[in-house]
């Protein structure tokens, strides 16, 4: 979060986006893109090698779980963290991606990778549509509309027999995918690549004019508009990108679990995690959702194994409430100098 957040609410608000633009360009280090991609690729390779040396299938399972949330949380952060528009419909977009992959496989027999591309397209269009319908209104209405979108989509899927309706759909998992030691590793690597892409995209957004424009919208939309920021266009780009990435997070889900029903795909747990992780890690920075996803995702994995799955979701809810109340800038906020 930028220093502008520290302005007291009573101060005149007009100077805030200008200040946001100024501080963003002054404080931000020169973007080192090559270094980032190399480091991410190195970290990813190290993870794959490390997990293969451990050689436990559960490691891939837990890793996939956390990586999927890195994608989801980074996607949420593009719209929620930078632009300040809260998307409650993460589960809806994710399920849209998952069901696109299922439908594509049933219709054409195409496999996971084309499914991911199709999921990105469908969920991205969905995001664009939602944004177009509601972004001209106050942010709250956008939030409510996303919540409703999830319910509408769930109703449609429940009534759509082609993809299994309420009974759910099965996808037969191959036992082995050649270069990988197991199917679990294959899924893990796919998700790892997607997570690196998602984080990279959100970092690129943050460091370019798009991100600065979105931050100006968050701080004061009217003033941003007056300064010549094309607010509607930027918001539409952000909703499309956010929806597409969420769809991408969902596309491998049926392949990963082998079976998917609407109740699991539209689970509120995805929506709450997608919000909690960036806010706990530190919304408005590309690193925040990653920290939040690793922390909360890891915690949930540990709690599911040791305690119960209801209790671990409860803990997520409490952490969300406590963090937004006590540490509104998230964990990253602790390490940032207050100006």
């Amino acid at each position: 979060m930028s220093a502008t957040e520290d302005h007291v609410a009573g101060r005149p608000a007009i100077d805030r986006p200008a200040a946001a633009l100024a501080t963003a360009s002054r404080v931000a280090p020169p973007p080192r893109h090559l270094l980032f991609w190399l480091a991410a690729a190195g970290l990813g390779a190290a993870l794959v090698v490390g997990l293969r040396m451990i050689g436990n299938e559960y490691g891939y399972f837990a890793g996939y779980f956390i990586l999927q949330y890195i994608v989801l949380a980074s996607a949420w952060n593009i719209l929620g963290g930078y632009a300040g528009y809260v998307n409650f419909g993460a589960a809806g977009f994710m399920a849209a991606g998952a069901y696109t992959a299922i439908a594509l496989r049933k219709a054409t027999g195409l496999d996971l990778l084309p499914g991911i591309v199709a999921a990105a397209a469908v969920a991205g269009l969905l995001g664009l549509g939602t944004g177009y319908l509601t972004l001209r209104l106050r942010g709250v209405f956008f939030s409510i509309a996303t919540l409703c979108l999830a319910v509408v989509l769930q109703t449609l899927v429940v009534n759509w027999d082609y993809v299994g309706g309420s009974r759910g759909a099965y996808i037969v998992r191959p036992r082995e995918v050649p270069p990988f030691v197991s199917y679990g590793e294959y899924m893990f690597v796919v998700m790892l690549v997607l997570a690196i892409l998602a984080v990279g995209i959100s970092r690129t957004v943050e460091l370019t004019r798009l991100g600065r424009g979105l931050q100006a919208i968050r701080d004061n939309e009217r003033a941003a508009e007056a300064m010549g920021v094309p607010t509607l266009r930027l918001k539409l780009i952000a909703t499309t990108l956010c929806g597409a990435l969420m769809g991408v997070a969902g596309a491998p889900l049926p392949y990963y679990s082998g079976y998917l029903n609407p109740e699991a795909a539209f689970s509120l747990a995805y929506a709450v995690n997608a919000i909690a992780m960036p806010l706990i890690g530190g919304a408005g920075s590309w690193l925040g959702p990653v920290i939040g996803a690793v922390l909360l995702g890891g915690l949930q994995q540990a709690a599911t194994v040791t305690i119960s799955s209801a209790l671990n979701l409860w803990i997520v809810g409490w952490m969300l409430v406590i963090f937004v109340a006590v540490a509104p800038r998230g964990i990253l906020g602790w390490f940032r100098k207050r100006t």
Partner: protein
Amino acid sequence: MDPDLVLLLNGIVSGLLLGGLYAAAASGLAVSFGMLDIVNIAHPALMVMGAFTVVLIGTTLGLDPLLVAVLQAPLFYLLGIAIYGVYHHFFERRGEEALQGLAFFFGVMFIIEVGLVMGFGPEQRFLDPPYAFTTLRLGEIDLPLRMLAPALLALAALGLLYLYLRRSFTGLAIAAVAQDAEALRLMAVDPVRIKRLAFGISVALASIAGGALVVVQPVEPSSGQIFIGRVFAICIMGGMASLPGCLIAALLFGVVENVTATFYGPSWSPAVAFGWLLLVLAFRPQGLFGKAA
């Protein structure tokens, strides 16, 4: 009479009765969201929580669910005051209600829902009052008491609230705080106190709506989710802060949903309801009865 026509008439009448329940559920939101500008997405969850406590207390003491709902309303009032206290201290005062406040209420909703699953289990709960299986008949039209009694309670609660907001000093102050909190301060009224009180009332209404809900249908912890869209749709269509608008929108909503369920099957009714909300948001955000901003 033509059987289709009878079916349609019955669909409309029970839709109106269902609309009574929706009015109870949405009226609390008309106070918190419409008047106080607090986006309490946890409202339906609070209503379901009210329904669960009604079942718990009603079964233990052998009391009528609607009576329990009214009796426990003061406790929910206190709960509402506590929630508002937290919300005001951490979000409203800092001017951070937009993103963080929304996330806060979303978290509260999630905590309530998962808490209910942990406390009561995920299965459906019900509490049938003795009159639940009686049906009045007016010619061809059925009036099941299971639907009629909650609708009447909802109308009574709405009527009382309307009178309170129109006639009493604090009621007028609540209406005033919606328009201009600063001006209220100049009249030596503390806007925070008024908002706290109004938010308490809105949560107390959630308790009454919960009692009405449990008479109409069995409840489960996730029942609140489907009500989120409904109550926000009704509230927005009714023009946010207007109680009569809220009532009319709720009745209309009940009829549309029920007629859809009668003719196309109940699994389609949520899509109609939420689709309608999306259309309203897109084309008439000031509500069906609201004035253009």
